[in-house]
């Protein structure tokens, strides 16, 4: 269990972690797994969820509750086979460079947990168990109605019957369920146990910074309904000239957008409940937020400033292509990692945005007014866009986006201000000028 050292230093880069979910069905395990995966991938840490239920479904697409009875030998065998298949795939994935694998299953017995550890530790993979424990019957039934009755297991069935069947399925698990270290003989495991949606938490034997980061992130999650609104600043004077970066004021049309924004926000929020507004420290975002209602709290964050284009700041794409032709091409080949000379890459932007994401997770309704690259990165977090996709996502000017997190993903609504603006989007490998994004482009 000791950190792997080579006598000179801890080999942080070689760390591989398996997050093993533990808990009865309908305790929000998949929600937690999905959030953790999204967060880690966004930080460029290769992460993947292996959902044992999906493997089992191949074998038993629509089982009834007795399938999950521990006395049902056939069911037991099939469920065991599903777990084995999921773990085998995960090991293969680790071999190909995976760093954090998430095993999403009930893992509700000591034997099953021991089985998982034995396999993973042989491969020098650290295991952290994340248990969600909940005794609140109302919360459980709410979760069942909300999520489980729409599960593929119950496709085409009456929701109320499905909910009852699911409740019975849980009872079969309850018969054998053993919370982590309930008997005091699992104390050497690394685990996070969240009880009754965070009322009590146990953290045991965290062994590295990445694990502590995952734990901190999971503790900041909340399940109160909320939305995040994203907008770029209004069209700027430099946008008109096709220049990137800089710190210019708004154009006439940009001003028009700033005046229209309060109306757009009100339409989207649907009431006059106040939002908290976060802008960058650059003139164009502050000016865009200027006309929002006085009772909205406004904060400026340096971390929300536009990607720093270094020597290319204030240039047009044509000028960049002329002066730094190799750089221009290199950026197209790997836009996410390309760091402008003396400036930043998208990867750098994501790292500096991390505290913002943590704040966002714990906050409620927030409106962010920022810049193209920064909005792309935040959008990528919520929509789980890959590094290949995220730097190319079109985020048009004069458009408000509303993101609402749901159990299995994020819902997006867009509100166009219908105020003309130049396009600031350029396709991969295209000529050095801004163009209109193709309609299937995204946002």
């Amino acid at each position, binding site marked *: 269990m000791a950190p792997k050292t080579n006598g*000179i230093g801890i080999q*942080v880069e070689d760390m591989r972690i398996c997050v093993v979910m533990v808990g009865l069905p309908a305790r929000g395990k998949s929600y937690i797994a999905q959030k953790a995966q999204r967060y880690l991938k966004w930080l460029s840490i290769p992460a993947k969820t292996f959902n044992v239920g999906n493997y089992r479904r191949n074998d038993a697409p629509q089982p009834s509750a007795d399938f999950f009875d521990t006395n049902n030998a056939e069911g037991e065998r099939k469920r065991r086979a599903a777990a084995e298949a999921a773990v085998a795939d995960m090991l293969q994935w680790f071999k190909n460079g995976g760093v954090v694998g998430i095993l999403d299953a009930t893992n509700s017995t000591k034997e099953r947990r021991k089985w998982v550890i034995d396999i993973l530790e042989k491969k020098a993979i650290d295991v952290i168990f994340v248990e969600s424990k909940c005794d609140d019957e109302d919360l459980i039934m709410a979760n069942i109605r909300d999520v489980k009755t729409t599960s593929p297991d119950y496709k085409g069935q009456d929701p109320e019957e499905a909910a009852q069947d699911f409740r019975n399925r849980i009872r079969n698990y309850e018969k054998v369920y053993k919370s982590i270290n309930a008997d005091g003989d699992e104390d050497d495991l690394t685990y996070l146990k969240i009880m009754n949606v965070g009322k009590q*938490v146990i953290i045991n034997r965290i062994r590295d910074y990445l694990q502590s980061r995952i734990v901190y992130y999971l503790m900041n999650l909340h399940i109160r309904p909320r939305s995040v609104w994203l907008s770029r600043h209004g069209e700027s004077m430099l946008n008109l000239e096709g220049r990137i970066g800089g710190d210019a004021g708004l154009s006439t049309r940009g001003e028009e957008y700033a005046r229209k924004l309060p109306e757009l926000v009100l339409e989207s929020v649907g009431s006059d409940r106040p939002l908290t507004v976060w802008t960058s420290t650059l003139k164009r975002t502050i000016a865009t937020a200027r006309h929002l209602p006085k009772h909205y709290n406004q904060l400026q964050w340096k971390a929300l400033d536009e990607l720093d284009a270094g020597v290319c700041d204030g240039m047009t794409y044509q000028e960049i292509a002329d002066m730094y032709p190799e750089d221009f091409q290199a950026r197209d080949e790997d836009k996410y990692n390309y760091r402008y000379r003396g400036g930043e890459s998208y*990867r750098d932007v994501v790292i500096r945005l991390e505290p913002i994401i943590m704040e966002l997770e714990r906050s409620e309704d927030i409106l962010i007014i920022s810049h193209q690259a920064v909005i792309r990165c935040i959008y990528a977090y919520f929509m789980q866009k890959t590094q290949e996709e995220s730097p190319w996502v079109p985020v048009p000017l004069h458009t408000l986006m509303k993101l609402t997190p749901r159990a299995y993903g994020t819902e997006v609504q867009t509100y166009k201000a219908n105020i003309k603006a130049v396009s600031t989007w350029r396709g991969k490998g295209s000529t050095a000028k801004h163009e209109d994004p193709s309609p299937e482009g995204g946002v």
Partner: protein
Amino acid sequence: MDTLLTAEIAANAPRYRRKSSTFIDGIHDVSEDPSNMAPAQLYSTMSGRLFHSGRIAIVMVGLPARGKTHICVSMARYLQWLGVKTRIFHLGDYRRATVGEGGQVPQDYFYPNASPASVMLRQKILKKCREDIYGWLNHENGQVAIYDAVNPTASGRRSLAKEFAKHDVQTLFIESFVDDEEILKENARNVKISSPDVGFHGMDPDEAANRYLQRIQTKIPVFETMQEEELNYIKMINAGQAFFYNNVSFNYLSHRIVFYLTNLHIKSRTTFFVRAGTATEEDSYKADAPLSEAGKAYAVKMTETLIKHREQERQAVIDGGGRDLPLRPLSVWTSTRLRTIQTGEPLKEQGYKVRQRSQMSQINPGVCEKLSERAIRSLYSEEVEKHELDPYHHRYPRAESYHDLAVRLEPIILELEREQNDLLIIAHESVLRVLYAYLMHCSTRDIPKLKFPRDEIIEIIPAAYQNEAKRIHIPGLDPNMIPGSPEDIRIPVQSPVSGPLSPLVGPSSPEPGEIILSVRPPEKVINTAKEMVADKVADED
């Protein structure tokens, strides 16, 4: 008599201590300037309180030798860094002030069935300490008061929480619970019995540790670990091996504290700071130039000096009768800037693990790049004026302020706390200033002026009550590359009134004509003021 007593308590209370200089860890000092913002403070509010968290009392729980002081001090360091106005109130300071120098509390002072006289004394001391806590929270815009005492009984803790609630103060208990014999003995050995005051001098260390632990048992016979369901508490078990977190009312700040505590450990290790070597294009930030020939020579000499120093330190421990332990492993962190990576090359070639951290890139000079001070003054005269008013928070157009830098360095700070190996940080002077300021608790007014001459390796050694700094001379360097910061951004900084500020005392660079080949012995600068150190090690709260 009462007036006299109060004055005496006041004189000894931590709240009256003032910051003396940047080379002493300022964690226990009180800022004189209420408008002074903390290094990584994200925003300020009218009330001075952050994170919508209101006023909080963090109440420590635990017997002596459980590392409470270390936890208090580290937590205060982190919270103050974030801008949360935090102050520690050690009940022991008040007790000592009351019983006077050399005085003893009655034998039954901690007993549940103490005599009326002892109970009265106890309550007098408690009252004074709490009055100071309320004074801090209500009249000095304090947000977090850390109350460092044993707080051994559930009933005592319940009434404490009730009392704080009456004053509209939220209570968060942090218990340090240790049942691992090894950790207990280690704590007793390290912190307590090394002090001559305690009366174990010259005794076999294991025997002394046992005697000390027994003494605690006799003095404080009743201790109930926390189980109060209705209270907010964090129980830190066996120095961070496990945490139990009872969350009655959701609060961001307490999550943040748990996150910090999960990265804290109590093993002793040192941190070294060095500058990067000089580069071929010193003036340009954007060029990200490689090391010059002189820069490469510097990297080699720095590496030799560091390795030799570590070996000597180890030998000194063995010669002093210490155990012959192998050298702690050394990790090296650089930024992603070429000159820092290349400065780490000689260490990498010798097999040391070198990690690049993009957050550790130097401060961005924005429009000031390549401009002379005169040019900046004429081109941006208004900005210069603003800058001189607040060099820490002001940012030139397109530039980063020191505050921006501190915010971006926060993950590095947590990893720094977690790191168990000795650690060498190779970075630009601006980054060293901010990291040094965290470990030595410098004020934001001093941070932009801290100097890190190239001919010195700074070593920071952690201790429970405060950190210590040491500087190690790198001999044989070209005098041109030592002083100032040729690669620094030419942002005009008002020169401090009292001469250049080095984080450490003594000449920071050789005088002209001085023979630079001479080897200066490592210099250790610690604060030996009696009331600050000697008193603490015998502390039994």
